[in-house]
């Protein structure tokens, strides 16, 4: 009950906070969060440039895995390990401390240094835990290497009995500082949770601008996972709908009504902006493409013989029937292995989620909770499905745990839509109406930690979908 009131209050307060990146944080969950602190990095003037430690702080704070301390509680802000006073930090009961600096090297080159300091070993002397935490040091270091950054194993790093869990430096341009913050957050997340972070991933959505006197405009957008660095790919005054990521995360499939107001299926490369018409299917297309995990085909919904069926379309538009029945079959979403699809069907009267097993061609009903469950999407491991659950008056995001056979409703906004999992499956992205506009929210699976993506102007951000990588 307290949680509900908190969320309601936060939503009421929202209009005043519009524009701020961080609006709502509820971390009073039952789940144990890893206590850490991310201290401000030393940085050169001008102070207006990206605050790398703030990026790391935000990433970790809203991941649902960490309890990140308020830096106002501290009066020591070391930036190198030798200045860390372990006696001081012992008072705060933290597992780890993130410290670092950004150093201008001239010529638009900046060196970003960070250290993840182990405070846990001082808290409890547990040698086995210590070893296992440090053993993943090398693998985490290797994944960071990329053409735009340099990663160095620190000579100070000593896995045997070190205060250092991670220590690296990167040299980047000023415009890449935000990305480096996300990369560091990924490394820390991996180090402390044992799972990959998702902070360098992308999201896609459709932004709809509505004004009274002119036609609405629809923009196909891509952005960083946290709503920064938005990029419009296509703008149209006819609807653009249901974007879907390719398995490699480099392309989107989507529906556009730009040609005579009739739907057609396109793909677009988000880097080259190259666009490809898959087909218009003589106006029978009903949206919701889903890329097969091998990238060769798209499952799409089509109107056929009075019903809505799901076919497989090759990238050249050649169709093969996949799922059909009386009534509606739509909103396909693939299991990452390609072995099964979840889809929405009203074949038994009300819209429910069903699963098609590709090998056996068997169809099995998955949802029985209430009369409305649609828009299912698998977790990366395929052990869970997020969906839109209607209770007769409201729509919320539901979570179906296939292993535990458990169904929970994880939002209480009553106007939620379009859920999808983060690449590591630990948080979800969805849209909901707030202060007059549809906004994007990232929330933990227990619904307790939520990040509202920055208000990006007077548009409705709809049909969000998280990239698979």
């Amino acid at each position, binding site marked *: 009950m307290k949680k509900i009131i908190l969320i309601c209050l936060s939503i009421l307060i929202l209009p005043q906070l519009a524009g701020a990146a961080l609006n709502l944080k509820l971390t009073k969950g039952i789940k144990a969060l890893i206590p850490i602190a991310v201290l401000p990095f030393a940085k050169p003037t001008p102070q207006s440039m990206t605050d790398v430690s703030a990026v790391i702080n935000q990433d970790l704070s809203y991941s649902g895995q960490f309890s990140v301390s308020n830096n106002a509680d501290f009066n020591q802000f070391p930036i190198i390990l030798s200045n860390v006073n372990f006696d001081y930090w012992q008072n705060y009961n933290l597992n780890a401390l993130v410290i670092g600096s950004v150093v201008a090297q001239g010529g638009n080159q900046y060196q970003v240094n960070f250290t993840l300091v182990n405070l846990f070993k001082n808290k409890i002397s547990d040698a086995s835990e210590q070893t296992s935490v440090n053993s993943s040091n090398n693998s985490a270091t290797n994944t960071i290497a990329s053409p735009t950054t340099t990663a160095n194993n620190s000579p100070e790093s000593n896995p045997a009995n070190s205060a250092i869990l991670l220590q690296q430096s990167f040299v980047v341009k000023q415009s890449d500082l935000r990305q480096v913050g996300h990369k560091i957050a990924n490394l820390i997340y991996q180090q402390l949770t044992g799972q990959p972070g998702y902070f360098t991933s992308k999201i896609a959505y459709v932004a709809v601008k*509505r004004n*009274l*006197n002119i*036609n*609405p405009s629809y923009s196909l957008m891509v952005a960083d996972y946290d709503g920064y660095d938005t*990029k*419009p*790919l*296509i*703008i*149209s*005054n*006819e*609807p653009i*709908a*249901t974007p879907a990521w390719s398995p490699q995360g480099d392309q989107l499939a989507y529906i*556009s*009504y*730009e*040609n*005579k*107001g*009739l*739907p057609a299926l396109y793909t677009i490369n988000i*880097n*080259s*902006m190259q*666009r490809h018409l898959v087909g218009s299917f003589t*106006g029978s297309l*009903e*949206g*919701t493409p889903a890329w097969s995990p091998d990238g060769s085909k798209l499952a799409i*919904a089509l*109107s056929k013989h*009075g019903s*809505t069926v799901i076919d497989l379309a090759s990238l050249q538009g050649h169709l093969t029937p996949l799922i059909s029945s009386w009534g*509606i079959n*739509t*909103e396909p979403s693939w299991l990452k292995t390609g072995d099964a699809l979840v889809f*929405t069907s009203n074949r038994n009267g009300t*819209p429910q989620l069903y699963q098609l097993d590709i090998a056996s061609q068997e169809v099995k009903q998955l949802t029985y909770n209430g009369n*409305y469950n*649609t*828009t299912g999407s698998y977790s990366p491991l395929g052990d869970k499905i997020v969906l*839109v659950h*209607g209770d*007769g*008056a*409201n*729509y919320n995001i539901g979570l179906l745990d296939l292993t535990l056979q458990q169904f929970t409703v994880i939002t209480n906004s*009553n*106007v939620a*839509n*379009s859920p999808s999992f983060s690449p590591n499956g630990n948080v979800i992205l969805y849209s909901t*109406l707030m202060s007059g*506009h*549809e906004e994007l929210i990232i929330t933990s699976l227990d619904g307790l930690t939520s990040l509202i993506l920055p208000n990006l102007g007077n548009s*409705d951000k*709809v*049909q969000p979908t998280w990239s698979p990588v």
Partner: protein
Amino acid sequence: MMRNNQFSSKISLVIYSSIMSLLLLLSACARQSPSSAVVRSIGVNNYKPRVVKTTKFTLGPNQGLLGIRHYYFDCQSTLMPSQYQNAAKAQASYLKNTPSARLQLQGYAAAGGGEGYNIAIADQRARSVANYLQLQGVNPEQISIVSYGSLKAKPFNGQVIAKNCRVDLVYREI
């Protein structure tokens, strides 16, 4: 399907939404005239604005029953309401007497819930009108269907907007 929320505290919202949807409808009616979709892509490669000209929508017949171009459905149903049977019969007569006429049935659904499901529901509404016209003897080649689902509707705000559960009848040039 969703039914209307009964909370009295949301009455003002209902009124607001109704006014908004009416305004939207009016503007939609006003712009059945020619329009062209402007599609442009922004970013690398100096992408040039992509302009696509749409086929002209003609006004078609407007006398009496023929002027009824919005068929409002029960939001829990995809069956054409019986109150439109006479209007649909009049359209059928016109189409049979005017073999060159081409009618597009545009299906719409209320916002909220699965977008793909809404597109399918709206398609079934349009199909219900198409079936009725064909039962009256209209040549199927004169009828086409497009479903917009709730893509043109304002986001779901807790109230089902009944005016969005409809089929629009739009005459087009060949």
